[in-house]
């Protein structure tokens, strides 16, 4: 049952207010005002969201809140409203977005304390929150697309936030364009759906409407649309082949990386697929594709992560890898699980980024792990919180990541994707390896910090550490809502989402314990390896790298994918545009024809002009010529 709940609009209104304020009066109002308004609006949104979420919890299962704001695009029989809908799924998302978002806003106050562009920063951040909330709360595919592109825009703006650096500006554009490529697919997906239903006289893009007319769509269309939409997701959620923008996105301010490129935006793809699960379920091929891509991305990114020296890049690739997990989950049909991991990941990954930010902050902007080490004494809070997050991501019980990742692997196995399960397990090992590599290189061993920086190393101010602690708590307990079945309250999370997403049923039963045991062993192995390599015998990595130089470079250069794209796509595009189209066709062929005609006309005119010699006898001759002609014509008339 759906209850009309206008207050939902408030969740969007507050960030909107923040945007307007920061944009127009921010710089004039001064830092204090901005530092208050920026986070405050998000907290406000958070409280409204909690209120709404509470209502959902009160309601019987399957309840939802909705508000229809105004009709949006109405053409022919096609009709889309601007309307919001909050059900269990979007509820979870909203809570994550506003909650984590609020904390990160808070953190930003400290992080941006020394930047004079704070107003613009908070304007963008609020705008992002707004877009993300639109994406989540939208009750139809098209409005979701508004948020979908909106977050893309904000990511563009925030990546190139420090625009004076051309590299940053470039990365920002890269992010936007790559996203656009995905979005093109997304649009096509929407069109396919609309057309498919339109042929049956049904014109709706509302999720409820789609679900109820799903039978009209048919598997073929469902697969096509599914694949296209998923292509959109690969852009937004940085999956193969469109993941390339995310690592470069790390040049933005770290809180941005935490909020946008870890916790929320990049998970939009997963959310979208969960939203449209009924569609994907009709197209098994699409599902398999998603699962496969997910798993491949997971291991692919993980392998890259193990050699990256830049702390944030490691996290970036780890994000890609974790997103891979989520897609693996939804691809296997375990939508709730995917969302579950999405949530836990939001907690620990944003925490990781914030900690990394804190580290970077402490080291005055240093991001290279080779220039860190032995920091755990200097910045204890950061260390402990980061450690917790790491344990969470490496799926060490009882931290949150453990539960979600276990469920994913179980789903992968029981849904008959043995190989994908195997990849998942290996990835788990790699994950724990590169994460602990990060921990060890940053906080343990002997310090490699540049001497002049050493004295200034300091723990971040409370405004930054409080969010860390808060997130650490979440990263710890966040997984307990989804315990294995039979343990205490079992998987309450899945039960909560079941009315929306249905419940996952594997093809066969298999003891979870065994699977999680294997996974845990992989993780443990990873940790152990990391310990060996980076604490026991620090020289070892060098040697390995030197021995397997090819492999090492391959990984360090991220499999040369960027170079490949540059060679295959970018350069030819520019060549064709500038040489072929602009010069050859436009200037030479088309305009050449035009001007050529003009020239020909003028020349013939000049020639005709020269016949006017001024000698009257020539005139008489031409006259006679004409006369002969006409007489000849009449002769012909007579003769015929």
């Amino acid at each position, binding site marked *: 049952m759906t209850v009309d709940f206008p207050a939902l609009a408030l969740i969007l209104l507050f960030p909107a207010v923040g945007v307007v304020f920061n944009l127009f009066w921010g710089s004039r109002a001064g830092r204090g005002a901005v530092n208050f308004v920026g986070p405050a609006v998000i907290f406000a949104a958070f409280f409204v969201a909690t209120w709404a979420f509470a209502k959902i919890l009160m309601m019987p299962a399957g309840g939802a809140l909705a508000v229809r704001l105004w009709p949006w695009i109405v053409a022919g029989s096609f009709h889309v409203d601007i309307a919001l809908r909050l059900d269990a799924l979007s509820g979870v998302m909203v809570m994550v977005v506003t909650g984590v978002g609020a904390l990160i806003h808070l953190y930003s106050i400290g992080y941006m304390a020394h930047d004079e562009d704070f107003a613009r920063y908070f304007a963008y951040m609020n705008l992002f929150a707004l877009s993300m909330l639109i994406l989540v709360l939208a009750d139809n595919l098209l409005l979701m697309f508004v948020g979908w592109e909106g977050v893309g825009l904000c990511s563009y703006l925030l990546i190139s936030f420090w625009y004076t650096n051309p590299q940053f500006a470039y990365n920002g554009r890269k992010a936007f364009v790559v996203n656009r490529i995905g979005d093109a697919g997304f649009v096509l997906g929407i069109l396919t759906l609309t057309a498919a239903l339109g042929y049956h006289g049904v014109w709706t893009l509302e999720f409820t409407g789609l679900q109820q007319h799903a039978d009209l769509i048919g598997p073929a269309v469902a697969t096509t649309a599914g694949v296209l939409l998923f292509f959109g997701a690969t852009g937004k959620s940085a999956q193969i082949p469109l993941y390339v923008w995310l690592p470069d996105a790390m040049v933005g301010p770290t809180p941005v990386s935490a909020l946008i490129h870890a916790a929320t935006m990049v998970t939009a793809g997963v959310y979208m697929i969960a939203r449209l699960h009924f569609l994907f379920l009709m197209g098994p091929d699409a599902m398999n594709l998603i699962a496969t891509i997910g798993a491949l991305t997971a291991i692919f990114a993980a392998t890259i992560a193990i050699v990256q020296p830049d702390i944030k890049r490691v996290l970036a690739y780890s994000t890609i890898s974790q997103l891979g997990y989520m897609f693996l989950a939804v691809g296997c049909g375990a939508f709730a699980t995917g969302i579950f991991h999405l949530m836990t990941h939001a907690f620990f990954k944003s925490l990781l980024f914030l900690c990394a930010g804190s580290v970077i902050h402490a080291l005055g902007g240093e991001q290279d792990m080779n220039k860190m080490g032995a920091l755990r004494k200097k910045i204890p809070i950061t260390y402990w919180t980061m450690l917790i997050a790491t344990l969470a991501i490496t799926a060490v019980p009882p931290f949150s990541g453990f539960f979600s990742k276990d469920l994913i692997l179980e789903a992968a196995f029981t849904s008959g994707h043995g190989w994908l399960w195997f990849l998942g397990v290996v990835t788990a090992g790699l994950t724990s390896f590169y994460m602990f590599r990060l921990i060890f290189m940053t906080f343990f061993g002997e310090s490699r910090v540049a001497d002049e920086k050493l004295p200034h190393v300091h723990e971040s101010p409370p405004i930054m550490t409080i969010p860390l602690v808060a997130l650490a708590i979440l990263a710890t307990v966040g997984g307990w809502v989804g315990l294995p079945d039979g343990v205490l309250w079992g998987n309450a999370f899945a039960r909560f989402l079941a009315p929306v997403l249905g419940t996952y049923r594997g093809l066969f039963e298999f003891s979870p314990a065994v699977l999680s045991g294997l996974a845990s062993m992989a993780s443990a192995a990873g940790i152990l390896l990391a310990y060996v390599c980076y604490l026991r015998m620090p020289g070892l990595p060098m040697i390995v790298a030197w021995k397997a130089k090819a492999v090492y470079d391959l990984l360090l250069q991220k499999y040369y994918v960027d170079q490949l794209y540059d060679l295959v796509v970018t350069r030819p595009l520019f060549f064709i545009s500038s040489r072929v189209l602009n010069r050859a066709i436009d200037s030479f062929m088309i305009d050449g024809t035009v001007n050529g005609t003009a020239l020909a006309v003028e020349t013939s005119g000049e020639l005709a002009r020269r016949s006017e010699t001024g000698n009257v006898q*020539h005139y008489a*001759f031409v006259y*006679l010529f004409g006369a002969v002609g006409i*007489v*000849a014509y009449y*002769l012909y008339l*007579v003769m015929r």
Partner: protein
Amino acid sequence: MPLWLFAFLAALAIVSALGVIFQRNPVHCLLSLVVTLLTIAVLFIGEDAVVVGFLQAIVYGGAIMVLFLFVIWLLNLPVESGPAGHLALKLFGSLAAATLLAELFIFLVPPHLQVKYSGHPPGYGSMENLATTLFANYLVAFEVTSVLLLAAVVGAVALARRGGAGPRPATSRGAAPR
């Protein structure tokens, strides 16, 4: 008129006409022109156009030709100095003229020459008859010719009289850039 006479006159007319266009000295041209005109006058009379024939002889052979003669002497024209690089013109001109003539001939041979013959009414070509037609059917035309002559006189005077038509410096054409 007997055919032989016509043949003679025709030959004479053509020869003298050719003389007009082939002789160097304008005066000779003029003289052969006069011959042609008189021949034609004779042909007129042969065609029962007595009055017109005599008019032809007088007006043309007399007045107009004398006028020409005056001009020639007035300007004491030199003998035309040869065909100065006009060969192409002469050649193609002759060809064109010949073509025209040929075409005309084809039109004028019997199968194509359809004219309603009718006998001469009494007094055909006589002065009275001419006058009647002139003043009955062509009164306006007759008046117009008078105006025409007046206009011609005025024009001739306007052009020939000395003085007047004040300073109008000839502009150098093509001076401005294109």
